């Protein structure tokens, strides 16, 4: 279980949002809402451990994620998949190379077939061996989403995952997220779109909103 306890974030001597607490359990999806600049991305980065919090703490299965507990941090990272504004893809590599290298860097093994299968599901099978720089922005995002579908991570933290996708890719993504939650995964994402339900195979997964309020 992921627990956020009284987290606050200060930028330029000004607190971004009022201290926030919530928890995320297996099989649960949370939608982080808030106006532009309220600190949604900053909060996600704090949760992942990329930025320090100015107060409060992040707990994983009841243990604080701090440098004093490296074993907890390591276990947390092994279960985490973060997708930020930058897609972490290399323009000079092909989509399949990006998937394979990324999996290895994250300490996982991924077969070529499984990678190709993930790209096929995202409609990228004919683009799998082209350099990423010749693909459109939407196709690049679909490559990043294909990476999500092959990760074994339990906790998905996604920053604006619905941006720059066409209707078909949006449906694919919603089904992917719903499947993940249905199988006991944890999902935390930001979006400016209203997302109340995620649907897959006729099942509806309820998404709970978390509202960030400017301080």
């Amino acid at each position, binding site marked *: 279980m992921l627990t956020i306890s009284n987290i606050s974030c200060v930028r330029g001597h000004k607190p971004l949002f009022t201290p926030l607490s919530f928890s995320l359990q297996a099989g649960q999806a949370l939608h982080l809402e808030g106006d532009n600049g309220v600190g949604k991305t900053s909060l996600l980065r704090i949760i992942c451990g990329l930025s320090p919090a100015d107060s409060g703490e992040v707990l994983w299965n009841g243990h604080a994620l701090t440098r004093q507990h490296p074993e907890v941090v390591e276990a947390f*990272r092994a279960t985490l998949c*973060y997708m*930020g504004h930058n897609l972490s*893809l290399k323009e000079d590599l092909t989509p399949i190379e990006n998937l394979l*290298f990324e999996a*290895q860097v*994250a300490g996982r093994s991924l077969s070529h077939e499984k990678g190709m299968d993930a790209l096929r599901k995202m409609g990228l099978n004919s683009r799998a061996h082209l350099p990423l720089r010749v693909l459109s922005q939407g196709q690049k995002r679909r490559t990043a989403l294909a990476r999500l579908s092959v990760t074994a991570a339990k906790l998905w933290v996604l920053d604006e995952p619905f941006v720059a996708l066409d209707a078909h890719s949006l449906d694919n993504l919603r089904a992917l997220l719903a499947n993940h939650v249905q199988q006991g995964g944890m999902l935390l994402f930001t979006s400016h779109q209203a997302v109340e339900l995620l649907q897959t195979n006729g099942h509806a997964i309820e998404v709970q909103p978390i509202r960030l309020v400017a301080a």
Partner: protein
Amino acid sequence: MIWQAFWAVAQRDLLLAWRRKSEGLSAVFFFVVVAALFPLGIGPEMNVLRNIAPGVLWVGALLSSMLALQRLFEADYRDGTLEQMALSPVAMPLLVGAKMLAHWLVSGLPLVLLAPVLGLQFDLSGDALVTLTLALLLGTPILSLVGGVGAALTLGVRGGGVLLSLLVLPLFVPVLVFGAGAVEAQVSGLGVQAHLSILMAMLLPAVFFGPLASAFALRIALE
């Protein structure tokens, strides 16, 4: 899992360098041009060329490695790959070490291999060429490792290129002194073992502390 991630990062950087050959080749080309212009400018006086050869070749190698240093973490920082490295369950210093290894293979090893050929223009003897190659083989990894710390510290800083030079060049001075000194000692008929031993003594802590310090600086840059 750890070594799989290490080799994956190194392989990826080598593949990227292969696909963007112009970036890697520019540093090597710079080294070749600098080393080739000196004999043309100074003239065919063999004694003078022999005397200046160690310094010229080492300064050329040092400056050309500086050219490639700025790009060491920049692309990864821009496209978000660095964030994924920081979030990997594999220790970040190890992944940074893999990047440094790839950087040396692309920008340092070609200098080591080219140096004996360029040394011929300076009328260096066979023994001096061997010493030059050995000294560069020990010295250029130090440039990548120590320079990597500077590149990490100046990542995302406006005017980082100038700052990187100011930060790193003073740290390169001992490598330059003992690297060039080894070749000078060989040319003068003195023993080179002391110089090479000192270079080795600098390399070993750099291998250990370079990736550690760089990873620490990169985490600060990401914050």
